[in-house]
Each structure stands twice: as structure tokens, then as C-alpha cells.
């Protein structure tokens, strides 16, 4: 498996796109993965599921706008250079 850096960048873009597509109330609530269904207690450690949900929500919030730009650039480059 010979990786190039370009393959890594492509994989990262695809992965982040996949996370960004998970809609909070249309999809995640239906499978019980939304934040308001999983409010933990106060003191104790959060647990893996709550951490994953928080991670998904943070990635969606942070990467929403940059992903537009990155995807546009990627589309243009793929059209031009195949």
C-alpha cells in the first residue's frame, strides 16, 4: 500500500464530509445520538458515546464553512487535472 500525501488529504476530506452530513434533528435524534437525549450527570466521567456525540457536533460546527471552500477547490482541481 503505497500512500501519497494526496491520498491522505483525499481520505481526510471524504471523512470530514461524511461527518458533516450527519444532520442533528433529522438523523441523529432518530438513532438516539443527539445531545439532548444524552445529557450526562454532573460529576462523573462522560463515557464513550457522549464523547463521540460531542466530537461529531464540534466537527460539524467548526468545519461547516471551511468545508465549502475546501470542497469547491477540490472539485475545481479534479475537473482541471483529473
Amino acid at each position: 500500500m503505497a500512500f501519497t500525501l494526496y491520498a491522505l488529504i483525499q481520505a481526510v476530506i471524504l471523512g470530514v464530509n461524511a461527518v458533516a452530513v450527519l444532520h442533528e434533528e433529522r438523523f441523529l435524534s432518530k438513532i438516539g445520538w443527539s445531545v439532548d437525549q444524552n445529557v450526562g450527570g454532573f460529576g462523573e466521567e462522560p463515557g464513550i458515546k457522549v464523547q463521540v456525540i460531542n466530537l461529531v457536533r464540534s466537527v460539524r460546527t467548526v468545519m461547516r464553512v471551511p468545508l465549502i471552500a475546501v470542497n469547491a477547490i477540490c472539485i475545481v482541481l479534479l475537473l482541471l487535472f483529473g
Partner: protein
Amino acid sequence: MDLPHHGHRATKPRARTGPPAGDPMLFDDTSSGGPQMTNQGYYNSGYMSGPPAAGAGAGAGVGVNNLFTDPMANAAVMYGSSIANQGKDIVNKEISRFVSMNKLKYFFAVDTKYVIKKLMLLMFPYTHQDWEVRYHRDTPLPPRHDLNAPDLYIPSMAFITYLLLAGMALGIQKRFSPEVLGLCASTALVWMVIEVFAMLLSLYLLTVHSDLSTFDLIAYSGYKYVGMIFTVLCGLLFGSDGYFVALAWSSCALMYFIVRSLKMKILSSLSSDSMGAGASAKPRFRLYITMATAIFQPVIIYWLTSHLVR
């Protein structure tokens, strides 16, 4: 008007042999009306000046040896150096926005004794007793003073050495080309990025409050290149049997090293906040992380070196 003109023409042959001390003064005075006079001076002093000197002189305006007395060239040099300084400042500012330079300097504060002892430790860690990272008033000691501290010098040097060794191994087997070297480098880099990312993700998901920063993880992930170099060397020198023996040896040593080093950082952070039955799942998962990291090392060493020693 006649005197500077004569002086100008008279100094032309002198400028070709070497710049006399008083020469710049003369040229400063006449440089405003310089170009026309120098052209006439060249024609009038005849062909013995030679076309190359004439060409060089006309190009610089006053002659090759007196570049910095020409205000145009002077201004150009100063402008260029100020542009270069601005560019350097911009680059430094951008880099320090992503990577804190002070933290990076900590990892490169090594000396020869540390490097030698650390390399021996990576190859034979079984007799080392004390694996604690020593602190000095809440900040970890730099690698110069503490053998257990992670550094980034050994991983970066080992990475470059591994690339050179891969090029040499491919060249010995007559399979070398520059593209293959670049492919080898980016493959190794990509695997390191994947490993560091997986470690960060698992440490975040299991809320392990350790003081392992990203650079620490890069350092621990880069120590496997030392094992890879040893393995490839033995494979080149002793053939296939030597390769597998060295692979086994460096894998065991590296696994032991990683488990002992990470155990201090990951598993010991639970002693203060573990309470009751809820915490029983935690030490197990932390142990799984450490074991998974350790087992990943020989797999990667084999994956990245087997195609070099076929």
C-alpha cells in the same frame, strides 16, 4: 568640467586592474552625468579596453568593482533585503500561529550523551529501572537532563536515515528511481500521521487526562524508525534470516519500550480520580490502548521494510 572628465577617463584602466582607494569618491561625483561620459570614455580610450569590460561597465553603469557606489544598485539591494526581511517575518508569524516554537525547542534540546543512551535504550530496554519522567517545578525536564523525556531529534534523524537507507537498498537491488524514494517517504509519513491521529482520537474518547501532547505522540511514534533502520541494515547484511531475527529483536524491544513509557503517562493518571465500580472499565480500556499501540509497531515495521529486503 574638464577636470572630472579627465579623471574619469584616466581611472578607467585602473578600475580594470583593481579599485584604488580614492576611486569611489570620483565616481560618486560624476555618476549623475555618468552614462554619457562613460560611453564616450569607452569609445575614446579605444579598443584596448576590450568588449567584455565595456559590456560589464555599461551594464553596471560605473564598472564591476564599484557596484555599491551606484545609488540605483544600492537602492535595489536595500529594497531587496527589506523585502526578504518582511517575507521572513511573515513566515515566522504564520508558523508560530500553528506550532508553538518554545514547545518545539524543548524537544530538540538534546546532547550527545542523551542520544547515545536513548539509542541503546531503544534497542535494549530490559535493564532500565526507572521510567518516570522527572519534573522540575511542574515543567518536565528537557531531554538533556532526563533520559526518559521524549525528544524529536532522534525520530527526525532516524526518519531521514531510513529514507536514505531505503534508497540504498533499492539501489542495490537495481530498483531505484527518484519517484520510489518520494513514495517511500510519503508512505512512512502517512502511516505516522494515521497512528498519531488514532492515538489522539482514542485518548480523547476515553477521557484520559494525561499530559501527552501531540508532539509527545509524534516522538513516541517516531522511535520506531530506529528499529526499522536496524532491521533493514541486518536484512541487507545478513539476508532474509538476518532480517527476521532483527525484526523480532527490534519489535520486542520497541514493544517493551512503548508499554513501559506509556504506562507511566496513560495508566497512572487514574489513581487520583478512580472511585467505585464505574472506574473498573477505565483501566481496561487504557490498557487496551497501550497494548494496541505496542502491537501496531511491529506490524508497521514489517509493512514498511519488507519490500526493501526482498
